[in-house]
């Protein structure tokens, strides 16, 4: 099974040269650490920044400079700052090439639920609904099963939806899966030490398994 860092590392391979990328909170944030140095990528933070850099060195934190997770950050040369309307404007206009975010549930037709658990305190959707409704390419970074051992890859989401038919790819601790246009999770890759049967058991939605499922290349 993959660690969170390994999930992030695997997702980083999906980032291509010239991409503008929005990284959500949690595992997606870690993806930044694994972007190959030989490709040109710009990170967007939806609170109004293109060209987000690493965390500041201790003592160099600037309270006026944070990311969408409210973490202190830095900017890289060539960065630009803008207001929230323009930020979501460029997201809505699909100028951001790839969005990576977490999820509580994903359905086999690409629906996502990641903002609300009925009966629990509702913190709000933040920018998640805008991102999933607008992004042309969304990868979900998530655990395959929840703490109770139940699959989070479902025939249909049980939690209130964040967006519909929007998720294209999922990377979990067990597998890499594409969401098929006609519905269903297509098993692209398995974690090196995980069997197809194990993944099948952990996937409640329709799983489409090709003849050969390669192990992820974690190099």
């Amino acid at each position, binding site marked *: 099974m993959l660690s969170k860092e390994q999930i992030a590392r695997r997702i980083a391979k999906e980032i291509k040269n010239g991409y503008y990328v929005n990284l959500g909170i949690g595992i997606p944030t870690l993806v930044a650490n694994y972007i190959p140095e030989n490709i040109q990528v710009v990170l967007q933070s939806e609170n*109004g920044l293109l060209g987000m850099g690493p965390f500041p*060195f*201790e003592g160099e934190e600037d309270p006026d400079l944070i990311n969408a997770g409210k*973490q202190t950050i830095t900017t890289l040369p060539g960065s630009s700052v803008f207001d*929230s*309307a323009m930020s979501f404007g460029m997201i809505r206009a699909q100028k951001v090439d790839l969005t990576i975010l977490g999820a509580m549930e994903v359905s086999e037709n690409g629906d996502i639920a990641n903002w609300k658990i009925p009966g629990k305190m509702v913190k709000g959707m933040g920018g998640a609904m805008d991102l999933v409704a607008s992004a042309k390419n969304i990868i979900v970074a998530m655990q395959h099963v929840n703490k109770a051992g139940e699959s989070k890859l479902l025939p249909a989401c049980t939690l209130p*939806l964040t967006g519909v038919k929007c998720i294209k790819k999922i990377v979990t601790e067990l597998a890499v899966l594409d969401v098929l246009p006609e519905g269903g999770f297509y098993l692209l890759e398995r974690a090196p030490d995980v069997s197809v049967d194990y993944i099948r058991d952990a996937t409640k939605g329709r799983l489409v398994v090709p003849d050969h499922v390669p192990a992820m290349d974690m190099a």
Partner: protein
Amino acid sequence: MIYKVVSSAQEAIADIPDGATLMLGGFGLCGIPENCIAALVARNVTNLTCISNNAGVDDFGIGLMLHKRQVKKMIASYVGENAEFERQLLSGELEVELIPQGTLATRCMAAGYGMPAIFTPAGIGTEIAEGKEIRQFNGKDYLMEMAFEADFAIVKAWKGDTAGNLVYRATSRNFNPVMAMAGKITIAEVEELVEPGELDPDHIHTPGIYVHRIFKGSGYEKRIEQRTVRKSESNEASAS
């Protein structure tokens, strides 16, 4: 130029009545109008509807107004990080309306641009869409969302001049420019107040026409919510 300076936060907010609808700039605790919030707490204006991306934390930002139960309704996109907020919400003391962040920003901008409504795909297929008009354009569904006006918009800028022109710094810009455009009365607090001509006309973020009152704030705490740093000569991140 038109002179918009008031002497203090107290004077700037003196006529905000109980029951007013306020917009407050900021993202988390970044770029919030600290001085005006303090003055609103001191004057104990109540029954407020607050439109702001977040609701502060327990002991800072809008959290200070929540603590004194000055807020009747909160309209926001994300309200975590605030236990008193949660208590009032669960007890029914506080109304909350949650709005996708981009929709919130664009509804403010729409008001500032005289557009009564905008179309966005955010929330299609979710409970956010309930009761709202859906239109299809080029095969994609969009929600029609209404422009957002506030009785008073209260924003924080880095620099401003006496004519109300504003310049923001780094990501403390966030919602401030779009809210500045959406207030029937817009109040700006700035760290540095300068004479007309000292700000480069090409680099003003909010033209003074959108600002009705401006004053030089003081004692900015600028609290950091998530202090994340890396160690020197290392790429490892650590959160504290």
